């Protein structure tokens, strides 16, 4: 009897051990989706609700239209019905080595990727932060650590390693749901201080619902950001963005020349012309 009990305990112990030390099976699927560079990601965080898409080397990002309209839809019900037909420009787009920032319905600023770190670019035009906005959010870095050329890599932050799995209850769409959580960690070492950066990914029914990044230092935990995942899939739904390349006027980056000093922005042609010209 004692032996049986022991063996049972051992078996359960091993089983438990096994489950506690493996990632959720869905993690591998997500890794494949993001590494294939064809993905659709919709998420909410404290700044708002955003969509990031990657398709055939084209990356686009913007605040979700759904969120932007929000409660104001009742003001213009016709707009809500017919609004779907207008061009849905992203806020930022990367295509064929050129970054575009949309500044209006038919206007965009552009900058070639090779010029984006140029010393002569006006730092106030914010081009240095544009690639980061197209990178996969850091909360999901577990699936794609090297998101070149969009992510600015920091050599002082190492890639996270899988630690353990556990169950935890989170609010998902207003309901308390018990989620399977995977925890990843990496150690941060400064000259005077150290801490551990944690990535907590919560799955419900085999799908990622929540990604949190927090830091632990001197026994205290500090939240950095929490993403509530609305949708992750490999194909971008049709009509998410539609860019009318022929009718979008583009403006060259401000490189400190005379036109820049006089603050005269001159159109460099339509988006199609610029893409045809290349970098």
């Amino acid at each position, binding site marked *: 009897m004692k032996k049986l009990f022991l063996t049972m305990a051992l078996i359960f112990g091993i089983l438990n051990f096994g489950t506690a030390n493996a990632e959720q099976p869905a993690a591998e699927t997500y890794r494949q989706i993001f590494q294939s560079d064809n993905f659709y990601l919709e998420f909410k965080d404290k700044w708002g609700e955003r969509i990031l898409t990657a398709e055939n080397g084209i990356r686009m990002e913007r605040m979700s239209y759904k969120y932007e309209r929000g409660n104001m839809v009742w003001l213009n019900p016709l707009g809500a019905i017919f609004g779907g037909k207008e061009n849905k420009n992203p806020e930022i787009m990367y295509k064929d080595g050129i970054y575009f920032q949309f500044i209006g319905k038919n206007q965009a600023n552009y900058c070639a990727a090779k010029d984006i770190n140029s010393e002569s670019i006006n730092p106030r035009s914010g081009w240095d932060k544009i690639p980061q906005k197209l990178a996969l959010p850091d909360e999901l870095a577990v699936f794609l650590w090297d998101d070149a050329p969009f992510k600015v890599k920091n050599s*002082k932050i190492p890639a996270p390693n899988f630690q353990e799995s556990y169950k935890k209850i989170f609010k998902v769409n207003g309901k308390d749901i018990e989620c399977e959580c995977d925890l990843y960690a990496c150690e*941060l070492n*400064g*000259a005077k201080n150290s801490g551990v950066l944690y990535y907590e990914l919560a799955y419900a029914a085999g799908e990622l619902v929540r990604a949190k990044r927090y*830091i632990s230092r001197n026994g205290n935990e500090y939240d*950095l950001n929490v993403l509530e995942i609305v949708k992750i899939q490999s194909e971008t739904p049709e009509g998410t963005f539609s860019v009318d390349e022929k009718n979008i006027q583009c403006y060259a980056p401000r490189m400190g020349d005379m036109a820049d000093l006089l603050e005269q922005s001159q159109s460099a042609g339509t988006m199609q012309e610029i893409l045809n010209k290349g970098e």
Partner: protein
Amino acid sequence: MKKFLILALLIFAVSFHVEASRLDSYREILLSNSYTIKYTNVTPAPRVTNKDRVELYGKSGLAAESNDFLTNKPKDGVITADGQNKYEEVGGEVDGKQLYMCRLSKNGEDFFFTKYKNKESERKWKYVGTRRNRVVANDKNYIAEILENESYGDADMSRLINAILPNSNENSQQAEYKFVAQGEIEDEDDNYNFYEDYRADLDSGKVEIVRYYFKDNELKKIASASLDKTPSGEDYVRRYIIEIEKFSPVPEENLLQLPKGVKDETKRKKSKEA
């Protein structure tokens, strides 16, 4: 926290120099985390361009060098802390106006605001946070604080003050500033009469040499030269001069709270989500 500090002080007393150094007393002041420092950064940083991209986590020091108004001007700074809270300001005269960027770290939150006077003769400072006389608490930049060490005013000052402190993290890959030499020095204006030199061989061939100037036992000036190589292999040398006006262990309590008339309008969650 106190135990940790005492332990740190002990480790330090045993491990650091055998000979007493003039910088020791300043090191102790910094480690006790209760101080007031007033300084002028005589050689300010050049304008930040897109070449110096902001890393993902940002910087721990106040970003005075990317503030166009303060570019290529000497900057004054005040840093004061009482063990729990810290206040930093960096700024100076801009077109006849007095303008300072300020950060108050209180109860684990950061308040950023600007204080200014349109004329030197004006009596009262004006404050702008999110708007006139209103501020909102921000989360601290924890990653920057770990990787780039504690902030002391602007980035140059932060680095040169951190150079005084030992690397207390054993796993750190960062180079430590080591004592090289000390001696007497003559100055025409008799501002200082003694120096101590420290040197660090930072990664990828970068070298920094720091000289701390003393008048008797009082820290008066920090000068530094750093030698770096550009990606094309040319030498890139920069020098820094910081004049210390005050370095005392007494915190200025009136600076360690929001100025009179400035309201905190942060919407705080009543209960934090687990």
